[in-house]
């Protein structure tokens, strides 16, 4: 809304006063809420550089006697593996998962957006339904299925389903994006001699790249945060991803060395924060394309 236009109709003096007050109020709300929002994060980062005792003594986030002890000790972890092992495990899960998610989602979305498929409406409705379906209703049979396949305590159950476009949200997102793209461009490619797969690779993918990046980023974040799936599928500590390792850390280091746990938490969210700041426009686009334009 245009503040200037909204206040223009008022008498000049009260208008200016009210406008300043309104501005002040709004910034006050925004900054206050913003501080409350970010303070837990600031505190986490600050506390990770504090000696343990200081964490309990002060509520300020800035460490008075900064130390890397939390990182040094935390990295060693209470287990026989360093935190590096868990980070590596996380990436061993996430990298293949993101890749197969992107590939399968793009292929399936292309099929839905550009082809006459028998039963297309029903299939697409089912796709939306999978977004709304509570995953816990699938959890137990999926677990039994992977147990019968002998996949327990491997990374396979964590990313193989993603190769079959099981995240309906991503497919939906790309379909929405493709619908917004002119078909004529793809027809030009067909006339230029592309088959449908070449059209997808040479023309469609470059054009919908922002959507693809969004999908990759969201899948990265969600997988980073994923806890329940690794919890039920992985039993050997040496295969734990970061999320499980952190849970393990608070269970064994309870009440003693918060700075270690917070240091590792900081490391755990660091990739997400960096990615988020580097590519926030893709997050905003990705999350809004399915709702506002849908």
């Amino acid at each position, binding site marked *: 809304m245009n503040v200037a236009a909204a206040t223009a109709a008022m008498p000049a003096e009260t208008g200016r006063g009210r406008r300043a007050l309104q501005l002040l109020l709004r910034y006050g709300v925004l900054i206050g809420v913003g501080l409350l929002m970010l303070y837990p994060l600031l505190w986490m980062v600050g506390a990770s550089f504090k000696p343990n005792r200081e964490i309990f003594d002060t509520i300020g986030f800035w460490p008075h006697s900064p130390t890397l002890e939390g990182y040094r000790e935390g990295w060693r972890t209470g287990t026989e593996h360093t935190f590096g092992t868990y980070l590596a495990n996380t990436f061993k899960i996430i990298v293949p998962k993101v890749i197969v998610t992107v590939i399968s989602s793009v292929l399936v979305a292309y099929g839905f957006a550009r082809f006459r498929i028998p039963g297309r409406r029903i299939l697409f409705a089912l796709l939306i339904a999978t977004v709304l379906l509570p995953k816990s209703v699938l959890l137990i049979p999926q677990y039994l299925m992977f147990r019968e396949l002998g996949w327990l305590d491997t990374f396979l159950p964590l990313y193989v389903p993603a190769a079959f476009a099981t995240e309906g949200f991503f497919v939906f997102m790309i379909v929405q994006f493709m619908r917004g793209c002119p078909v004529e*461009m793809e*027809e*030009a*490619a*067909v*006339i*230029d001699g*592309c088959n449908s797969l070449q059209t997808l690779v*040479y023309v469609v993918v470059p*054009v919908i790249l922002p959507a693809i990046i969004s999908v990759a980023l969201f899948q990265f974040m969600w997988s980073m945060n994923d806890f329940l799936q690794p919890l039920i599928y992985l039993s050997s500590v040496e295969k734990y991803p970061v999320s499980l390792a952190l849970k393990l850390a608070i269970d064994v280091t309870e009440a003693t060395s918060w700075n270690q746990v917070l240091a590792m938490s900081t490391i755990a969210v660091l990739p997400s924060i960096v990615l988020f700041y580097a590519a926030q426009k893709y997050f905003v686009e990705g999350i809004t394309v399915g709702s506002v334009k849908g």
Partner: protein
Amino acid sequence: MTRGGLALEGLCKRFGSVEILRDVQLEVAPGDLIVVVGPSGCGKSTLLRLVAGLETPSAGRIRIGGRDVTAVPPAERGIAMVFQSYALYPHMTVAQNMGFGLKMQGRPKAEIAERVARAAQILQLGEYLDRKPRALSGGQRQRVAIGRAIVRDPEIFLFDEPLSNLDAALRGQMRVEIARLHAQLGATMLYVTHDQVEAMTLASTIVILNAGRVEQVGAPMELYRRPANRFVAGFLGAPRMNFVPAHVVSQSPGALLIGLEGATHGSPLRLVRATEAAQVGMPVTLGMRPEHLRLADAAASLLHGSVTLVERLGSETLVYVKPEGAEQITVKLDGGSAVARGDLVGLQVDAAHCHLFGPDGSAIGAPSDATGQSAAAGANVRVAG
């Protein structure tokens, strides 16, 4: 089987139960610039897409250069298409856009570069070759789209309303450019538009399409002067032809006497037509182009009514007359006509310029003077009242 011609044989297209094209027959000679024109939804774009191979016909054959291409993929048909939205690849440079088709054919780089350069020279695009489409103006993008077609060296160019995204000034300029290109390349072109001005100015042959059917095919002035039916007569020409309901009063050797419905005075019009074309009493429609009408003494005129609106366009004046009990009539007069709103005027027409349409809409004969402009412009104008 000359190279470059196009033949459509009994082409049909249905989407479900909707018939988009019905039994289209068309023969295009090599080197022709054929314009398919019709109102929106008439199936003209579908026709073009069928020729391009982007849609499959429900029935019928398509031949290009004598070769049956009905089942041939688009890239192997020897066609190139210029899209309404240009459809340039946004992530490729101008040169890459133009060379993409050759690249897909696996042509050597040097050949691609050479052919792109040649097309760029024809279209004066040389300095833009390394730019991305978004850094170009609308007219430049249009030229790149045409350049992409030229590079493919097709047997037939297909244009899908290529000028409709441009503003009026640019549209006129590009129209001239396309005409020049046609003359320079001597290629066969199939051009789809809803704009009759483009059709009239560009075409060597016009195809009028309506509701999926070909209404008439012919040279522009031929269609203008001898429309085969009411639709064609009404579609070509701006302002539109005036249609007045009438009936056959009597026949005389080699002529029909036509009386207007509801006309209380004035003598019937005598049109030179073969008498066997119509029976006495048959309802017909009289068609008169605005430029063939002239103002006359109300008493001695064919129709009379009051002037509802006068539009002065400078070189000409459009006068709208509402006769009692009939629909509004448009009259085109020269620029200086002294006529004003509210005037009571009579209208007269030269029978030699009149079109006659039967109850089914098809033309009965043709105006006997279907060769030159009317002499009406110089006629004596008298205003009654």
